[in-house]
Structures are given as structure tokens and as C-alpha cells.
């Protein structure tokens, strides 16, 4: 497979805090093909950001990649130094961060900030840089780029700022774009435009996108494939269709069921009881077991392996084990829905 852009193997990342070791990522394997949009979803604190940041080695100093490999464009960057990474960042991988209000430097004009990124690829003069910058802004849907280059980030709205960060990420023409919850802070209307923009980019220029969100609506709209994370592990991954219409991990099922959907009229939502585990003390076995009303004894003891359901669909849960009782494998809740 020579068009694999990103290949992550058994990645484990821990933060060493005074209180102990936070196992933020616990053995995640994932690979992205060229032009593909993969969405990682899962609730807060399940390690999505940690995963993204370890791809570009932007983890804090007390974070340690404990095992695993990251291969970007055929190069294993696991052992790369800070200097080596400078060549990878921007050129190979671009990243859009969570909060558009803080990711732009408030005291530099956006022209300057764009130019910094543009300079990675060209040694063009100031005028040419400006032209390219205007082009980029237009690409992300900001008109009258010429006048706006001199403006400060504060003079833009949140949505515009988010698009500017996207433009900056795209400026050095990376093959892979990592977008870590790019839309959480935005209005629904702006969010929609962002998503469509990304989708167009992937389609038209073959950009590979790894998008992180916990909004399943976003995932449904944009993704080719969706991965669900829970407590530092990828618990289920499959095409969008597979995940949304045939979720297999009890957590995925619970998540989908908990969405307030327009169809439901009665006042109660179906919720998953309990809280996600504290990553300081990750329990043995399936981390979700304690919230799963149909958890089996083995869930509390042994980590489930991945069970493949199709070429693209895998899930790590004992419910898929042939030994599991019938009621667990086909929970009635799901049946009723279909």
C-alpha cells in the first residue's frame, strides 16, 4: 500500500503527572489512505487530542510515547528529533487546532502569519507572498483578502479565524491535515461551512484528513470512515455507514442512542449511566464495562481483542465473541430501533 499517508501502529502515550501516570493513549493502530477523511469521535478526555499531538510530536515534555510507531509518508518519525520534526510539520502534516480564538497570535497581522507558513514552500518576494496569501484566503472563503491581510485576528469573527487557521495549515501544502475539534467553538452555521470546505478540499485536491470531534452529526456528514475512541483506545472503526447503522461496541451504541433526535417526542433521552474512567487509574479489562448494563464477567477481567466484522469494520468488545450469550450480541434496544 504505497498510498498510505499515515500509519500508526500500537501507539501508547502517557503523561507523567505528580499524581501518577495518565495513560492517555493505550495502543491505537490506525492508517489513513490518500484522500480519505477519517473522523475520530469519542468523549472528552478519551485521548483524541493526545493522539493527534503525538503524530506531530507536539506533546508536553512530561508526555512519553511508550510504544508504537508513526509512519508519515513512508518515514518512521518515531525517533525524529525536534529538528527533524520541523521539516515534517507544515510540509508533510498540517494541523488545525481546537480553539480559533486563541490559535492565532493576537498581535501579528494575519498576512504576517500566513506569510510565515507560505515561506516554507517558496522563497518568493513579499509581493508574491501576498498574492498567494490572498489566494489562500479566497480558497477558504474569505473575500477581499487584499485589504484583510493587514488586519489583526481580533478583527475577524470566530468562524473567519477558524478558516484563517485552516488557510495557514494549507499554506505549506501538506499531504495530511489533522483537524482537532475545529468546530466545537463555532456556531452551527459556521460549523457547517467549515465541514463542507474540508470535504471539498479532500475531494478536489486529494488531501488526507484526520478529523477529531465528539459531535456525531459532524462525523456523519463528513467522514469516509469513523473511529470511536474510549479511554485511550480505539474501540470501534468502520465506514460511516457501518458505524451509524450497525454499531457494535456497546459504547458506540450508547452514544448513538443518547443523541436527542428530532424523531423522539418523549422527554427522556437514553443515556449511558456513569462517568468515563479516570485515566489515572484505567481499569483492567474493558474500560467501558462499568457503565455497560450488559457487561459480562470477562469484561471486568480481560481486554477485548478486535473482532473484524468486515474489511473495514472492526470493534473491540467481548460482545462479538461467539461465546457471548445471545441477549448480549443482539440487544433488544437496537432491534426495536431498526
Amino acid at each position: 500500500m504505497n498510498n498510505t499517508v499515515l500509519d500508526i501502529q500500537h501507539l501508547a502515550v502517557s503523561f507523567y503527572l505528580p499524581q501518577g501516570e495518565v495513560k492517555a493513549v493505550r495502543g491505537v493502530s490506525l492508517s489513513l489512505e490518500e484522500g480519505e477523511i477519517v473522523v475520530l469521535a469519542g468523549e472528552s478526555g478519551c485521548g483524541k487530542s493526545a493522539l493527534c499531538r503525538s503524530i506531530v510530536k507536539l506533546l508536553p515534555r512530561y508526555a512519553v510515547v511508550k510504544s508504537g510507531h508513526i509512519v508519515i509518508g513512508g518515514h518512521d518519525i518515531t525517533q525524529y528529533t525536534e529538528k527533524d520534526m520541523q521539516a515534517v510539520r507544515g510540509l508533510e502534516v498540517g494541523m488545525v487546532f481546537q480553539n480559533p480564538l486563541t490559535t492565532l497570535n493576537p498581535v501579528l497581522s494575519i498576512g504576517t502569519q500566513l506569510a510565515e507558513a507560505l515561506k516554507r514552500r517558496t522563497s518568493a518576494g513579499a509581493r508574491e507572498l501576498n498574492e498567494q496569501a490572498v489566494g489562500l484566503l479566497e480558497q477558504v472563503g474569505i473575500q477581499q483578502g487584499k485589504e484583510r491581510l493587514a488586519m489583526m485576528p481580533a478583527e475577524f469573527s470566530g468562524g473567519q479565524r477558524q478558516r484563517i487557521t485552516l488557510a495557514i495549515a494549507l499554506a505549506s501544502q501538506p499531504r495530511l491535515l489533522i483537524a482537532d475539534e475545529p468546530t466545537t467553538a463555532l456556531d452551527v452555521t459556521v460549523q457547517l461551512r467549515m465541514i463542507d470546505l474540508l470535504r471539498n478540499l479532500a475531494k478536489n485536491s486529494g488531501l488526507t484528513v484526520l478529523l477529531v470531534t465528539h459531535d456525531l452529526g459532524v462525523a456523519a456528514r463528513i467522514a469516509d470512515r469513523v473511529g470511536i475512541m474510549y479511554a485511550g483506545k480505539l474501540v470501534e472503526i468502520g465506514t460511516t455507514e457501518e458505524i451509524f447503522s450497525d454499531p457494535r461496541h456497546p459504547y458506540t451504541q450508547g452514544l448513538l442512542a443518547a443523541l436527542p433526535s428530532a424523531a423522539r417526542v418523549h422527554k427522556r433521552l437514553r443515556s449511558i449511566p456513569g462517568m468515563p474512567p479516570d485515566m489515572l487509574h484505567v481499569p483492567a479489562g474493558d474500560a467501558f464495562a462499568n457503565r455497560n448494563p450488559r457487561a459480562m464477567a470477562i469484561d471486568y477481567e480481560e481486554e477485548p481483542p478486535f473482532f473484524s466484522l468486515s474489511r473495514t469494520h472492526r470493534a473491540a468488545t467481548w460482545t462479538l465473541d461467539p461465546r457471548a450469550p445471545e441477549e448480549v450480541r443482539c440487544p433488544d434496544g437496537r432491534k426495536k430501533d431498526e
Partner: protein
Amino acid sequence: MKVPYKAIGKNIAVFFISLAVLSGVVFFAASYAPGDPLQSYYGDAVDQMSTAQYEAARHRWGLDQPVYKQYFQWVDRSLHGEMGMSLKYREPASRVIHDFVGNTLFLGIVSYILIFISAIVVAVCCVLYEGRWLDTLLSETGTILFYLPAFWVGLLLILIFNVNLGWLPGSGAYDPGEAGNWGSRAEHIVLPVIVMLISHVWYYAYMIRNKLLDETRKDYVLLAKMKGLGRLKIVLSHCLRNVAPTIFSVMAIGVNHIVGGTYVVEAVFAYPGLGNLAVESAKYHDYNVLMLVVLLTGAVVIAAGLAAQAVSARLDKRMKTEGGTAWTKTNGHLPS
């Protein structure tokens, strides 16, 4: 561009009001201090004067009037450019000051510039090596040096570099009679400036360091890293730009601290400057000189404050969104 007349006018008003308040405070404080200003003029002879003589002398210097009247007379006279006589030197106060201003300015400005350059350099080093040996080393040495009494350091330096090694002069502002010789002046301020650096750099470096550390925790640093920029470059071209308003307001406060610092240094190095003069005139109740020194320093400090405020407001529009003046917003970390 629109000229902000209103803002300029307001600043000028604030400036003069502050000066008026300042002069009032010092005038009243000084006149209620015990001790007889006449003594600096007549020497111990004051004690031998008859009552009539004494009253005549007081009348001559206007000391028999109520303090507030004296103050207004003083204001009136100073508005006409007449700053009164120095009772101690028996010369017009302005002439006494005149001889000292240049020296202090030279020492002050050189120290000021070097202090802030070094503070920024030290702060950047600390930030680049945060939590590692260089940061720890700089922090610890900085703290020690900051707490060392400046006079003590100065004397040790004199002992080493002047007395024992004989490399540098240890007193005065220039070789006798060489007032116009900048080489000689420069040579003479080396040790004082080093003492100023030792006792001041860390104070500011620490503030800037903390502000910079806060900046490095901001998300735009990540974005800059994602552009492939190096750490030094990020600190210099991104973080430093963000703390610039802080640095400016710190620099405004710094004017006062550094002026205060020169007092001690001038005393140690027998450097003929305003600091020495101020200490002397306060000790000997030479009000006219004291007032002039205080007003002069006050004017510089207040003007610097206002300037810094204007500059930071320019640099950073966000500062405008909060009330108060520039210096109320810098969180000093070490008290002074």
C-alpha cells in the same frame, strides 16, 4: 491618521496634576520634618543666634509663613523659572542640580538600556530552557543577586576591580577635570552599571520570564510550531511581541526603580548625581534642591508611565478594553 487630541490633552493634564500632587506631598512632608533648614545655611551658628536674628533669618527665607503659603509661593516662583536657593550650597538650586543631572542621566540611561536588554535576554534563555539546568541556574543566581544589598556588591566590586586589580576606577563620574571626556565617563560607569545590572536585572527578567512562560502556554505557539518554526524564532517573533505591552509598562515602572537604584549606587561609588544630591538634601533639609530633584525624577517617571501606556495601547489594542492605567495591569511578581 487621526491625531488623538483628546487623549494627548488628557495625558498632559494627568501629567501636570500628578506633578502638582507630587510636589505638594514632598513639600509638606519635608517642611514637617524636624530639623532646621536654616542650619544648612548658617551652620551651627543658628544655635547662637538671638531670637531677633533668628526671626529675621526665617523671614528672609520665607520660613515664617504657613507651610501652604510657602508652597504656593514656591509654585509661583517656579512657574517663573525661579527654583530658589540651595540653602546648603548657597547657590541657586537649579545651578546645583545642573552639575548633577548630566551624570545621573548618563548612568541612568546606560543602566536602563542594559538592564532591559539583559533582562530580555535572560528571560528568553530561561524560557527556552524552562525547568532545565539553565533556567534553574539563572533563576537561582538571579534571586541571590537580586537580594544581595546593592551597596555590598558595589563595595566588593570596588575591592576586586579597583583596589586589587586596578582595572577600573571606583569613584566619581570622570577623571578630575575631564568632564567632556566620554571615554573617561564610560570607564567610570562600568562598575556602577554592573551593580545596577546585578541588583535589577533579575527583577525584570523574572517578570518578563513569567509573562513569556504564560505566552508559551498559549495555543498560537502550537500553530507557530506547526509552521515549522524553531523555538527561538517562536519566542522572539511571536511570544515577545505579545508581552511587549507588559515590557513597556514594566519599563515605565522601571524608570522609578532604576532612579531609586542609582541613589545607592551613587552613594557607593561617590558618583556625583541626583541620587547623592537627593539623599544629602533630604538629610540636610535643603528643600529647594530636594523639590527640584523630586520634581525632575517625578516628571521623568510620570512621563515615562504615560508614554509606556500610550505605546502599549498602540501595540496592543486589547489593553484598551480594560480600564485603569498601564501599570495597574502588570503583575509585578517581586515587590520592591
